[in-house]
């Protein structure tokens, strides 16, 4: 059943990809990521790859650090001034994430903001992991905060803090922060489809 569907999906993906590309007049902020290999592997893999392209981007990984230190920027440098996870992922006792980060981006300061701005819990350390390891970690209730697939899908596609990645505001110097490599709608449908297809993590 699975194999049969691939035949139909591939041409459609290819065509929409071309259409999308030709419609864009200005250079896009998104880097095309669909590799031929992924396409060959099938729709589920394609969805998986789209999702993972986003999850490993700095907009996501910066708040899933492996050392309790939030990261910043497209180079993922350690947060300046020694900010750290603190006891509840919200910073230190008085100087917290919310000392500077509010529920919206601030275009005057270039400080990003969204509701519930915080680090992902320590169990969700993704930084430095392979895509497969991140996906495994994400699906593992021991590490994902006890979320089932439905709840995961909600976090990935509806949580405002996650969706902030597509409206990341400007940097301190006023230039726009880099977006994740996949457009939001494409990402959402890829995530949903991947879960509907059984959330299969392909072998690397």
């Amino acid at each position, binding site marked *: 059943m699975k194999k049969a569907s691939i035949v139909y999906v591939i041409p459609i993906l290819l065509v929409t990809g071309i259409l999308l590309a030709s419609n864009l007049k200005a250079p896009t902020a998104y880097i095309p990521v669909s590799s031929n290999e992924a396409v060959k592997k099938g729709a589920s893999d394609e969805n998986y790859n789209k999702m993972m392209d986003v999850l490993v981007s700095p907009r996501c990984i910066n708040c899933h650090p492996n050392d309790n230190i939030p990261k910043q920027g497209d180079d993922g440098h350690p947060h*300046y*001034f*020694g900010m750290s996870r603190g006891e509840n992922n919200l910073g230190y006792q008085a100087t917290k994430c919310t000392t500077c980060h509010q529920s919206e981006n601030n275009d*005057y300061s270039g400080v990003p903001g969204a509701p519930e701005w915080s680090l992902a819990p320590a169990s969700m350390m993704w930084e430095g992991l392979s895509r497969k390891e991140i996906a495994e970690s994400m699906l593992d209730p021991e590490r994902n905060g006890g979320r089932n697939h439905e709840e995961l899908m909600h976090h990935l596609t509806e949580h405002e803090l996650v969706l902030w990645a597509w409206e990341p505001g400007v940097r*301190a*110097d*006023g230039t726009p922060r880099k977006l994740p490599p996949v457009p939001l709608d494409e990402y959402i449908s890829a995530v949903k489809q991947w879960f509907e297809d059984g959330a299969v993590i392909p072998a690397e």
Partner: protein
Amino acid sequence: MSNKEKKSKGISRRKFLVRGGLGTLGVLAVGTYVFRNPLRRSMLEMAETMAPTYMGSGTEPNLWFELTKENKVIFHSPKVEMGQGSFTSFAQMIADEMDLNIDQITVIGAATKTGVVDAMSTGGSLSVGGLWQPLRELSATMREMLKIEAAKKLGIDVSSLSTKEGIISGGGKTMTYAEVANDITEWDIPDTPELKPMKDYKFIGKPVKRIDLNAKVFGDPIFGLDAEMPDMLLAAIIRPSVVGAKFKSADTTKAEKMPGVVKVVLMDDWVGVIAKSYAQALAAKYKINVDWTIEKRYTEEDLRNMLQVGKGNQSITQKAGTALNSNDNDVISMEFTSPIGAHAQIEPNGAVADYNNGDITIILSTQVPGATQKVVAEAFDVDTEKVNIIPTYLGGGFGRRLNTNHAVQAVQLSKEVGKPVKYIFTRKEEFQHDLFRPPTHHIMKGKLNNDGYLEALEHHYASGDVAVNALIMPRILTSVLGTDLGAMRGGQIMYDKVPNHRAVQWHTTLPFATSWWRSLGLLANTFAIESFVDEMAIRAEKNPVDFRLASISNEGNKKRLYDVIKLAAEKGKYNDKPVNGRAMGFAASTDANSPAAHVVEVSIEDNSIKVHKVTCAFDCGVVVNPDQVKAQCEGSIIMGMSGAMFEKMTLEDGELTPTIYGPYDMALMKHAPKQIDIHFIQGADIPLPVGEPPMGPIGAAVSNAVRRLTGKRLTDLPLKLS
């Protein structure tokens, strides 16, 4: 001092003025303090001994003191307060010679229109030392003047009057100073009275609390950016991000439609946005696209190619014995570098300016009210007297505000809209249009004699401008001397007993402005020299303290350096072997005739250098306020650590970067040593410079400790382990 000389320095009777003033009873204005050829004397001394001089100009009605109805004295200081604590020291001097309590004295920065402004600047750590003699003499003279009038009013002979806490008493009668001054328009001015002996001072030499402490703890509006004028607008300016870029054109249509925008001003090399609020000016600023003509985008590599020993203008600033022969196999040579440093003072630059038919008023944080007045007068083609510069407390100076020519832009903006305008730098503008500490390159050479002591020591160093091209330096001086006197600070070899020693400067003007940064060349020059001396001691297998002492005369002025080195080593219990993962580093410097020596204790934590303790011995002559001199030592040490261990600007694709705190790495609370011990030696009978000299040894001391701990010699600032 002979009597004749004393008189020539006394108060000129002709220049003594009495003025009425708003809210003041009798306004006492005392004429200028006369020096013969102050400029020449000052320059020579600055280059040589750094004896503090005061260079007040005497062409204006010079307001020094006001006496208020409340029997308080307002001192119009020719020097500004930027944190160094000099206002407090001035109050101590006035209180002691005028017989007042500290809380009866207010000190404010003199405005150019009404007061005496130091023709040079507030800088070079010369404020307290410079006013030490004149301010005490003036205060003593004022006290005697008041006594003379009191004698007349009370009908008592002046010799039987005494003064205490602003009250004159005699024959069972008392009068306050204010009561005495009431109605007096003609004053008799006595010859300058004898000053009190040091032992009789109640305030000088004591840890008097800063007089601005309350204002600074309760958030009073005392800084340049706190100033306001009625009906004032706010402005932001766009300047190029690329070094050397020139304005070509700008599209301002979007900005002009932004809320609150009053006017967009296009000038030759900048674009200004004037709005009702600063936030509106900033929001509009980001909507303007400016096209700049960029001829070249300089890189860090370009910079290092330009700035090298052997390139630029050479001057031998010190020469004793013979030069080292580079073919000599016993000659040891090492290279050192330091990066571009930013001032990064927390109060951004800016100015509140009002242009009113050629009458110009500017309120701002500046170290150079006089020079700013001249620059503005020239720019708007008005008489200097038409420009009133009112200096405020400075939210940090550090040399950055030895050029505040941005006052011109503020005045221009005011002229454009016919209203007062406050112009504030953005932080990016601060970082990219700073007058940076120049980068440096050093080659040290040395040779040991048969006993393992220094036989030869040479410091060859390249630097960008410090004093050269600076606003406050007469150009003639540079062309006559051929040397950058600022880059030279700390660059001379202080080890006089080394038979062959020399210092050679290579000066290059860089494509971006470099200038004064607290202690000038001192931090980098001392880093190179004292790191190398430490390395030579290691090669000679000698204790680095003994190694240094063997090369310094224990007599004359050199004895002061000798003594601080000995005292620092003793108090800091210097040990050249690491103990329990901690090592000590030693270094010394003589800057501005105030020798300092540091012992630091260092460990390595998480691959970072951790400084635990600093012991400092310091000889700045007479200590007017021990608490504040200590504060300056502590600040110099930690700011010096910041400069030596963290800070670095780089040229990337034509832009100076970074442009914000954080990426511009600086010492924070967690980096500050938990223990700093300061020990004074008084080796001179006048107050000598304090604000910069203790910064000298810190970079080398930390580096020397790291060398002893890890075996690795770090030769580049900022000091990084890998």
